[in-house]
């Protein structure tokens, strides 16, 4: 019995390689089928933008090659610069594989330490692969989700906003009671603004207006977000009625100036306005922050929020690792117990067969014995076998409970030639 994980992540593979490895939900079953066909009793494929990992139960020796071959196919000609997928990947087995998944689920292995999104991705991977996961991986993924939840509730690993877009949400959340239903104006069409807008929308913010230097580009994004498109010059007046402004134009100088927006902002009364300037160079003139109830944050500010949260999260790594270790031992205890039962049964059956054969041979040589004497000899052989088997059985069960049963099981199999597959 064994559990293995093979894959690549943000530490071992660059983005362009990870993009090629990434599977859509529809591609998962096909890849898993091919890998399982090489010989494994269950599999789950976890594929996100930062990692693609095959979790396999009891894989045969040919399986790693099948995984790397499958991933290499996705690299295509020149995709990995002529390199095989295995050069970007890693393999971890047994306890290390379990620990790896638990760390992934807890956010300890994420690019942004403690990020919560991975928990949902682990759940989704398990859901998509359920048909071929098998009982061991079912239990493993179920426990991984519990470990993730435990780490998040018992440590501060998931507290604070540890990325710039989530920091934007955190900052806006310290101004407004709730973000749901707030209106946002997006200036420009930069990628970061779009990412931050997505974060805000996920909190219930309504993007009502999108303004850009070129109207057509504004219109394209506005249609995606269900908003109205404007040119930049039309946008200044709307600083008076929206709650959040997200700016990320490609302008080489500040476009949001005091002169342009102060009259509109003064009409707001006491209502706060949160301006998130995500452009480099900055879009918003610093003087705008002097206006009453205007809260202006640029990319450096948001990164400071994120860095602060990340530093605090790092303090919680030891506590999170302790939980992971504790849970790995718990899982391994269960898994070890699972392996011991069939091997012990096989061992006892084998010994019983030897005993029965030897007894029969002995009794054939002693035909003069009375039936009650024959019964005594049979009773003696049975008692002797039980005495012999008692200590190894107890030792194996105890070792399995403590998660140390594998060495003994292996020795037992080799010494007594127990070749039957575990779990059958």
């Amino acid at each position, binding site marked *: 019995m064994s559990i293995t994980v093979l894959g690549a992540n943000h530490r071992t593979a660059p983005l362009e390689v990870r993009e090629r490895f990434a599977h859509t939900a529809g591609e998962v079953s096909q890849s898993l089928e091919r890998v399982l066909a090489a010989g494994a009793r269950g599999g789950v494929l976890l594929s996100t933008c930062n990692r693609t990992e095959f979790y396999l139960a009891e894989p045969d020796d040919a399986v790693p090659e099948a995984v790397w071959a499958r991933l290499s196919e996705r690299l295509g000609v020149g995709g990995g610069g002529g390199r095989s997928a295995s050069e970007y990947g890693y393999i971890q087995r047994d306890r290390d594989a379990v620990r790896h998944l638990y760390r992934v689920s807890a956010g300890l292995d994420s690019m942004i330490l403690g990020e919560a999104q991975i928990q949902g991705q682990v759940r989704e991977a398990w859901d998509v692969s359920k048909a071929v996961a098998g009982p061991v991986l079912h239990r493993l993924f179920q426990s991984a989700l519990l470990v993730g939840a435990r780490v998040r509730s018992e440590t*501060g690993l998931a507290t*604070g906003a540890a990325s710039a877009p989530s920091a934007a949400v955190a*900052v806006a*959340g*310290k*101004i*407004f*009671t709730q973000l749901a239903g707030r209106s946002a104006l997006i200036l420009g069409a930069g990628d970061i603004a779009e990412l931050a807008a997505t974060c805000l929308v996920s909190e219930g913010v309504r993007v009502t207006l999108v303004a850009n230097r070129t109207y057509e580009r504004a219109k394209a994004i506005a249609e995606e977000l269900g908003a109205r498109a404007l040119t930049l010059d039309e946008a200044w007046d709307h600083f008076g009625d929206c709650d959040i402004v997200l700016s990320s134009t490609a302008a080489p100088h500040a476009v949001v100036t005091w002169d342009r927006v102060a009259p509109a902002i003064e009409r707001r*009364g*006491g*209502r*706060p306005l949160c301006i998130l300037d995500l452009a480099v160079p900055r879009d918003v003139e610093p003087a705008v*922050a002097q206006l*009453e*109830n205007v*809260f202006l*944050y640029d990319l450096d*500010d948001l990164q*400071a*929020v994120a860095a*602060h949260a990340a530093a605090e999260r790092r303090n919680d790594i030891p506590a999170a690792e302790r939980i992971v270790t504790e849970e790995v031992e718990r899982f391994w205890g269960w898994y070890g117990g699972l392996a011991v039962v069939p091997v012990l049964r096989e061992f006892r059956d084998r010994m019983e067969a030897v005993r029965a054969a030897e007894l029969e041979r002995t009794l054939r040589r002693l035909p003069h014995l009375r039936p009650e004497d024959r019964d005594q000899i049979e009773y003696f052989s049975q008692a002797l076998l039980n005495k012999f088997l008692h200590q190894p059985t107890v030792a194996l069960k105890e070792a399995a409970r403590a998660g140390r049963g594998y060495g003994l099981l292996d020795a037992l199999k080799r010494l007594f030639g127990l070749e039957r597959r575990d779990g059958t």
Partner: protein
Amino acid sequence: MVLTSHLAALGLYALATVLVLAPFAGLRPLPRGLLLGVLIAGIAAHALGVARLTPFMGVAPTLSLLALFLALLQVASEAAFRASAVGVFTGPLATGLIGLALLIGLAPDVRPVVGRSPWSILHITVSILGLAMLALAFIAAALYLLQFRELKAKRFGQVFRLFPPLERLDQLNHLSLVVGFPTVTLGVLLGFGVRYAGGVSVDAAQVVWGMLMWLVLGWAVGVRVVRRWAGRRAAFASIASFAAVLLVYLALKLTTPGTQRFL
């Protein structure tokens, strides 16, 4: 019994204050339920002690009652506004007031006959509740200004993390004033009733202070509701109102002899 209940409340309020302040010292915030549990246990002990306070007049019982209302308002703020940070002020204030009441001595009042009038007790209770609401408006305003300053200065430390959003603090300030004003109005009307219908003599200082509190609170509500002040301006108005009420009380108290009488 009165002393034991007050001492138990003092201990529990002090513990609740430590629990509220601990995250500001960099310690991990404890579960919200634990903080509320300690505070509610303190309120229960305190209410038991206050219920047995007879004749229920004088400085010490008044301070004790004010502390009880502040603790109750802290629980209400936490439950309705998730504003645990209110405890940064109400915690030490309630603990300090109850400690002061114990130091002054929760002894019977100098005018026991007056103290036994149920209308008089109702007048005092409602007026102190109004004062507690004004104190809560002040606290929400102070928290607002602190958070405002941190957000404007782009400091993302403990205040940023642990204080509620600006808008929520503004709403808490608004609600405290809007509920506090009718409460004080009722307290003042009951005071007039006690004086003119009940025939109880009331000192001029009490009338001056009661009317001042009503006028000041009325002004604070007026600028918020009629003139639609919000945010920083409304926060300054609340702080000025509370400061005026407190300073006038201290001035009147200094000119009134004796430590036992409220005014």
